[in-house]
């Protein structure tokens, strides 16, 4: 039941052109900034947006020639779109009914699914009586009720508050693990993507810019957007052994490479000094403080200079250094914390 798709959608001033392959039981997350085309991609897979070209092949069958109602898919929408005039049970039974099950049969399927998502007690509730988390689970049950081969989730957790989100995220992960078809989910939240997906596909401006397992993407970002998402400083440079030249600056890294590379290091690895520290001139530069903000328990210092960078320091260090915006500081990062990888 492998799904292979090449999606092409032309719009005025926007083109989506991506290829993806999802194995049975695999969860792939499309991650990207707003307007990158991830929802368009999902709607094209569902048959809700017409494709300008490309193809969708699921299990050897061509899907792109079928209307939405004929595709073996289940979809969970961002704000769930539960039918307001139907009970939770009838919402879940809607799909099986449309695909030819008898009323009693459809309701049995629906009741079993509601039970599975822990909402057996809410079968008779109307959508407006459900909390956000409950509505999300009904929406998932409704999508699973048609026994889809391809499950599509559009920002499944975006409409939830922070607390519910945590709980629903882990539940959703469990349900997705139990689903044997291919799953494609769209999100702009890196945490959702990392927790829920086996593989990430990062889309920017309608094209794939990076893909890999969550760990790979988190460790080796390839665009500024991904670097920001995973919280790393990222630069392009040219390597000559363990020495990497980024602009005019020289970095030492623990990796031995040649040619164009990316250099990444964590903001926590960047130390700040009032005066030029002694030692190696590598991995050291002079910067201007652009801004200071809280970041969890620490303080994130925005640095300007030869390049923009973030440095995370403790509030105590901030007080010791007596830093204020506009001030000149020296910044350094250890070679062992500086990762380089081929561009």
């Amino acid at each position, binding site marked *: 039941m492998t799904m292979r798709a090449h999606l092409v959608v032309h719009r005025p001033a926007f083109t989506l052109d991506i290829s993806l392959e999802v194995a049975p039981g695999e969860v792939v997350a499309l991650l990207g900034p707003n307007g990158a085309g991830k929802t368009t991609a999902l709607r094209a897979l*569902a*048959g*809700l947006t017409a494709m300008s070209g490309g193809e969708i092949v699921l299990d050897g069958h061509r899907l792109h020639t079928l*209307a*939405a*109602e*004929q*595709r073996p*898919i*289940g*979809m969970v*929408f961002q704000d769930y*779109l539960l*039918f*307001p*005039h139907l009970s939770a049970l009838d919402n879940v039974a*809607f*799909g099986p009914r*449309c*695909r030819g099950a008898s009323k009693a049969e459809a309701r049995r399927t629906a009741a079993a699914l509601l039970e599975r998502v822990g909402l057996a007690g809410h079968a008779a509730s109307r959508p407006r009586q459900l909390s956000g988390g409950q509505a999300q689970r009904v929406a998932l049950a*409704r*999508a699973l009720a*048609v026994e889809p081969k391809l499950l*599509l989730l559009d920002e499944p957790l975006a409409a939830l508050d922070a607390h519910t989100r945590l709980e629903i995220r882990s539940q959703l992960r469990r349900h997705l693990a139990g689903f044997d078809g291919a799953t494609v989910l769209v999100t702009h939240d890196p945490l959702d993507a990392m927790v829920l997906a086996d593989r990430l596909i990062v889309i920017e401006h309608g094209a794939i810019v990076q893909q890999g397992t969550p760990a790979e993407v988190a460790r080796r970002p390839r665009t500024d957007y991904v670097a920001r998402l995973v919280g790393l400083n990222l630069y392009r440079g040219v390597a000559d052994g363990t020495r990497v030249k980024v602009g005019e600056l020289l970095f030492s890294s623990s990796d031995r490479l040649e040619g164009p590379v990316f250099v990444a290091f964590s903001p926590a690895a960047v130390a700040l000094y009032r005066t030029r520290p002694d030692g190696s001139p590598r991995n050291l530069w002079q910067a201007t403080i652009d801004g200071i903000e809280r970041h969890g328990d620490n303080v994130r210092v925005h640095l300007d200079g030869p390049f923009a960078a973030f440095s995370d320091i403790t509030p105590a260090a901030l007080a010791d250094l007596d830093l204020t915006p506009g001030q000149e500081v020296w910044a350094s990062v250890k070679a062992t914390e500086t990762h380089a990888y081929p561009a």
Partner: protein
Amino acid sequence: MRTVPRQRSGRPPWMLVLPALLGLAFLVLPLAGMLIRAPWTTLPQRLTEPHVLEALRLSLVCATVATVVCLLLGVPLAWLLARVDFPGRRVARALVTVPLVLPPVVGGVALLLVLGRRGLIGQWLADTFGVTLPFTTTGVIVAEAFVAMPFLVISVEGALRGADQRFEEAAATLGASRWTVFHRVTLPMIMPGVVAGAVLCWARALGEFGATITFAGNFPGTTRTMPLAVYLALETEPEAAIVLSLVLLAVSLIILASLRDRWVTSP
């Protein structure tokens, strides 16, 4: 958040208040006048006169059947105008509203020319099926439906345009055909709009005069509806006209009031 004072300071300007009050009086006074002049003592006796009951029954039946006809034809038409992109849709939408602005008498004449005994379709109907519409109770229903249908179509089309089409997309991803989407998702969701349209349509049909008298004539028992009876009574027996008018007024108010809370006001 800052609270914004709801009441603007100062008096409302008389340039607005004066015409507003005049307008209100203009709308209410005739009704009040009717209540004042009504022959209250003889009212029960007049109400139960056979020709009054006959006209009332005919009016209610015709208006109701006309509304059903409008629902059966008008809801699909509204759906077509709102959901299907076909060439000439703008023209079709404009044509639908023509009976709204057409003087009803002209509508009656037009119906006669098409459905009359010598009309384009009427002649064929008469020759083939032996069916004649003008000057029959069916003719009354046709005339009322012709005049009232735009009210329904416009109301339902508005409801369809206002309805969130993503629910229809959600239904499609669950395997629902367009017909299933329509009757299991779209129709229940726009029901308030359909009922509001049907009420407007029914009220318009109940009060229909011009097209009815032109196309269906004025025969007691078959085509003399309440408005026609009122008009006729006014020439011979003004008090009877008042009584008939009161009945029409009461029926309209009762229907409007009973539906208002449940349907007509949007949630």
